[in-house]
């Protein structure tokens, strides 16, 4: 019964008026002047004491961004964003850079405690087996507050630190890889990110190393009218492996807030990166007021042969989500995966999917996308699968299922398939279903309340994807979405 109860609680939670992470941390902030200009870009760069090349890189992006237009091809509607009415940098006053735990302000520690994010290494160590430990990089508005377990990770050669720090400590790596997957003019929001990105995580796994613990980054937007522009870069050298999870929340505010992140993943020969997202940004209230605009670019480059990148996402928050975690399958025999659960309720709008670009020989990709739409929400799956003319033996299987709850929501599936190689085998399956009256009645006649019955059916619907989440995050996933009870009865 436990999981079903949790599911019901969770379904209530995603009732947009019951968002439980909506509190505000009252803390003195250091803000950049409002608005966007070259001066602001310079201001951010100077705040972070960046080298000249990085400032130039930002300015280049800013100048290109000025010539670009916001994309209008997605199935989401929102009034034009006034980019001059936003703050592009916000950091707790006490927090010029990442510190050790005892230097971090108590209000900040309290915030993460309330969010259930473990930052005290000692507490985490007590009673948890080493293989189940999770290292956390906690990002508050524009800066990283603290990164745990760094020394322990360093023992195996793993670098896990805020990207603003990596710029100084490992400039050669940052310079080599930053922007190498998502080029400067890739899209409107990625160019904006490149100009004003504030912080994010940097992960480097050396050759042959299996990262000894799960890594995670926890993003929190707190300040009003502030955009969060995180930049994450993960590199797995030959034969390396890492599993990484990101979580996101924001306070309940009437104004919309912008989150425009860029994530780049690189795998060399035989390496694997497993990237999981639990996105729970504030979705807005029941009338559709407020909430986060989540416009992110996530892309992985399977540069080496036999390498693998796997994206798993659980998307429940944000007023608008515009997000297509993708894989460039460059190395021969490389593998790309995308597993997604997207739940929309209230007036949420979601346009999400993936791109699998097959360039190398015998590359394979698999897409499983589950969309659940309720209330007045609109949910769109948009996916591209393409094979280059040299990508002989490319294979893709796409399964895309939508479940509708109620009569006022919509689900759409827009697949793009481009095969330039006759040997490519691409398969696409899509279903849209509604929870039927027959199913509901059947469950109720066996003793389930209507709510429990819905939860049970949703549980079943998302099961394949839930199973892809890292074990260590099973609890979090359970709280977040409907979970099958099957594991508990073996």
């Amino acid at each position, binding site marked *: *019964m436990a999981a*079903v109860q949790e599911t019901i609680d969770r379904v209530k939670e995603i009732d947009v008026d019951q968002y439980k992470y909506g509190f505000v941390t009252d803390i003195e902030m250091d803000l950049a002047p409002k608005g966007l200009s070259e001066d602001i870009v310079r201001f951010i760069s100077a705040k972070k004491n960046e080298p000249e090349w990085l400032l130039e890189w930002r300015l280049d992006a800013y100048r290109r961004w000025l010539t670009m237009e916001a994309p209008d091809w997605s199935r989401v509607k929102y009034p034009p964003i006034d980019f001059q009415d936003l703050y592009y940098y916000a950091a707790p006053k006490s927090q010029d850079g990442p510190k050790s735990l005892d230097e971090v302000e108590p209000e900040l520690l309290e915030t993460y405690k309330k969010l259930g994010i473990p930052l005290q290494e000692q507490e985490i160590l007590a009673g948890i087996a080493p293989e189940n430990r999770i290292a956390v990089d906690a990002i508050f508005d524009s800066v990283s507050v603290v990164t745990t377990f760094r020394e322990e990770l360093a023992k195996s050669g793993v670098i896990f630190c805020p990207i603003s720090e990596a710029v100084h400590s490992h400039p050669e790596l940052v310079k080599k890889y930053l922007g190498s997957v998502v080029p400067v003019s890739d899209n409107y929001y990625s160019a904006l990110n490149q100009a004003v990105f504030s912080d994010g995580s940097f992960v480097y796994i050396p050759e042959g190393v299996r990262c000894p613990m799960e890594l995670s980054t926890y993003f929190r937007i707190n300040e009003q009218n502030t955009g969060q522009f995180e930049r994450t870069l993960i590199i797995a050298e030959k034969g390396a492996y890492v599993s990484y999870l990101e979580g996101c929340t924001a306070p309940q505010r009437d104004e919309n807030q912008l989150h425009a992140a860029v994530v780049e993943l690189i795998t060399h020969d035989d390496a694997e990166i497993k990237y999981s997202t639990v996105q729970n940004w504030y979705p807005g209230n029941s009338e559709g007021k407020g909430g986060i605009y989540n416009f992110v670019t996530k892309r992985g480059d399977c540069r080496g042969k036999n390498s693998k990148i796997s994206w798993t996402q659980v998307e429940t928050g944000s007023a608008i989500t515009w997000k297509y975690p993708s894989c460039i399958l460059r190395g021969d025999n490389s593998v790309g995966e995308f597993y997604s659960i997207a739940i929309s309720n209230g007036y949420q709008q979601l346009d999400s999917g993936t791109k699998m670009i097959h360039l190398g020989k015998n590359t394979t990709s698999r897409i499983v996308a589950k969309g659940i739409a309720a209330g007045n929400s609109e949910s769109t799956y948009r996916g591209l699968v393409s094979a280059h003319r040299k990508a002989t033996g490319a294979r893709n299987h796409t399964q895309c299922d939508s479940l509708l709850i109620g009569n006022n929501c919509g689900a759409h599936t827009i697949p793009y398939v481009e095969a330039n190689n006759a040997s490519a085998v691409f398969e696409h399956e899509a279903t849209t279903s509604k929870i*039927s*009256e*027959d*199913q509901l*009645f*059947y*469950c*109720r*006649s*066996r*003793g*389930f*309340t*209507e709510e*429990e019955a819905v939860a*049970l*059916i949703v*549980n*079943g*619907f*998302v*099961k*394949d994807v839930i199973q892809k989440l890292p074990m260590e995050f099973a609890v979090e996933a359970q709280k977040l979405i409907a979970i*099958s*009870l*099957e594991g*508990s*009865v073996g």
Partner: protein
Amino acid sequence: MALLEIRNLHANIDGTKILNGVNLTVEAGKVHAIMGPNGSGKSTLSYILAGRDDYEITEGEILFKGQDLLDMEPEERAAAGVFLAMQYPVEIPGVANITFLRTALNAQRKARGEEEFSTPDFMKRLKILAQKLNVTQDMLKRPLNVGFSGGEKKRNEILQMAILEPVLCIMDETDSGLDIDALKIVSEGVNALRNPERGMLIITHYQRLLDHIKPDMVHVMYKGKIVAEGDKTLALELEKNGYAAFTADAA
């Protein structure tokens, strides 16, 4: 007090009259069979008893253990001990059969204020009952009714009934689609559930099920009414002569 009393029940669906004054009493410890030609309202009656809300009740009442059954939600009826083995059990993708069973049982127990079954206790009980009904481990692990054959679905309905231990067992054409062997297994499963506290209402077209599950009473339904009642010899008579005698009388 009778376990179930249906008094002068009239019901419509989308303005079409289906039930036309049904009177029927089911006693605890007894097995009642309802027979009748297609479209006489037998399945409608079973759905109304289980709480399906597609029907408009225009007249009459249903008392279950003296309580107004029509006033209860389907899940309340289930917790109170009403069970309908359906003619067409629905599929629930992704939800393992065993999970469904255990969660349903505990939902009912919780609603009655009883303690939930622990997993080992539940598994022990399930193992014994599943074996009797020839429900394999594989069937328990598969998603509920997804890809089940007709016979598997029906055996599974009876397994649910055995696990949930209802007071009133309603079976809607449980015998349809069953071969002789499956019919025997299902009948044995049903017979094992017969006890002095439990009443059964079996809806069927054919006498052959009643060879295996001996009814105490047989009711003939036609045009939304019970038109004849008798003991099990009535079923044999129907088998021999058809419904003509009763349908002619009623018309």
